């Protein structure tokens, strides 16, 4: 088998962390800028701000899906979905902690969430490797990355619904109306589905990554529908952009599938009687 050039894990970590945090912070920054500029441009900035949270969430999904891919390649014994669920479990604990403990200095919230998630992931990874003895060499690093990505997914898509990451607003807009469960579940599926669907000996990073973009975009679309309820117009923009991104990346994934398959044939239906 020829060596296929893959994107280095470190590059994807940078993409996820920087993209995710940038998206989350832009939702905070744009309304402030909008206030200063005023007029129509200011208003527009304010309306499109929450959409950037969802875009940051997609960056985190892509990173998380690649981390899931690296860990699950070794075979977990329990199926890939379990790792997506533990990612969201760790992510939700850490992100709530981050924004709650920094309620007085909300700007530090996302970073504190990311750091807390990494620590929780590191500890769980260490236990999985050394106490449960899973014998997966990348377990500690993988768990750390997955937990961190999980917290950024919760925050990114949560911010797209709430409009900002202040604890009071976040609790009122995301928790009280139950949208957090949508963020939790669809986020989990977004992170676990790409590898779960493409796994096997001929799995390729490019194909999995395109699928991760498309599941991220689906999450964005559904979160957009939720955000119409809480934020109105901003939610509609999130939803529309989500649909556009989904179509683009699903087409790319589709093309990748056709490229990787040796040939694609229509076989017709199974004949009713033996020939």
């Amino acid at each position, binding site marked *: 088998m020829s060596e296929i050039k893959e994107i280095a894990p470190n590059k994807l970590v940078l993409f996820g962390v920087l993209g995710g945090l940038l998206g989350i912070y832009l939702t905070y920054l744009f309304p402030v800028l909008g206030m200063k500029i005023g007029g129509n441009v200011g208003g527009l900035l304010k309306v499109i701000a929450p959409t950037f949270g969802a875009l940051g969430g997609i960056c985190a999904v892509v990173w998380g899906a690649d981390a899931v891919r690296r860990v699950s390649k070794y075979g977990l014994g*329990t199926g890939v979905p*379990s790792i997506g669920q533990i990612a969201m479990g*760790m992510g939700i604990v850490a992100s*709530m902690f981050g924004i709650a403990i920094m309620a007085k200095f909300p700007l530090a919230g996302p970073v504190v969430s990311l750091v807390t998630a990494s620590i929780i992931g590191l500890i769980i990874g260490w236990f*999985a490797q050394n*106490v449960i003895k899973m014998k997966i060499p990348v377990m500690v690093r993988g768990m750390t990355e997955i937990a961190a990505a999980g917290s950024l997914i919760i925050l990114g898509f949560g911010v797209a619904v709430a409009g900002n990451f202040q604890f009071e607003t976040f609790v009122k807009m995301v928790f009280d109306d139950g949208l957090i469960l949508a963020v939790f579940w669809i986020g989990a599926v977004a992170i676990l589905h790409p590898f779960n669907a493409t796994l096997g000996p001929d799995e390729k990073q490019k194909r999995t990554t395109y699928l991760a973009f498309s599941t991220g975009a689906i999450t964005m679309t559904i979160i957009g529908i939720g955000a119409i309820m809480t934020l109105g117009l901003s939610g509609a923009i999130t939803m529309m952009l989500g649909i556009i991104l989904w179509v683009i990346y699903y087409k790319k994934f589709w093309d990748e599938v056709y490229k990787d398959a040796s040939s694609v044939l229509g076989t017709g239906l199974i004949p009713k009687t033996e020939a």
Partner: protein
Amino acid sequence: MVSLLDPVILQSILLIAISGTLICIAVHFIPVGGAPAAMAQATGIGTGTVELAAGSGLVGLITASYMYSSLPDPQSQMLLILASGAMGSMIMIACTMLMGSMVYAFGVGVPFASAQVKNDPITGDRQDLYMSKGTQGQGLPTVCFVSGVIGGMLGGIGGALIYYVLIGLYSQSAIIGTSAAAVAGVFTVGVFYVNSVIPSYGVGGTIEGFHDPKFRRVLPKDAFTSFCVSIMCGIVAVLIAGGM
């Protein structure tokens, strides 16, 4: 800022750690067969550990929270809340196993047999005679069903206990206040998932129940891991209530 050394806070953290461990132990009781069981080639329900533990545990959480909201003085009625959590989980897991058994018996058409024991420890029926060649047993023998119901009970108590502790803490918190139920519920779900995935890595996908030799082999280290991780989750949960 809350003091972590306050006895009430310490007790809360310990209770969360105990509930996490209960959830972890619960997972070991539930007969999970994973993908092989889905093809009737292994004993247990044909899905993942996490799905089953979480599915039954979350129903327990719903029944426990319903009980919490309908009691006049819920904080003094801990046993009732835990019992309703356990009931909910047990009913859910029993329904899942019953419907699974119907499919195995009337759909797939396999006799129920365990691969791990020669005789069913509860009914005393011979098992190995009914095992198809090349499989790890099929369906859900009586002992697996009983084990699963015990697992549901432990998981339900675990989930209800976390919810009970957290809602007590959060309803007095200045920054959460009226949203205590939502925040406590979601946090419980988070801790639940962490604690149901950890043991599923330990058991490696399939376990038949308390009669499985694997049960004794993996339970101590999984429970220890869950206890440590849940203490950490407990500290995080308590700090959320205080803010900074």
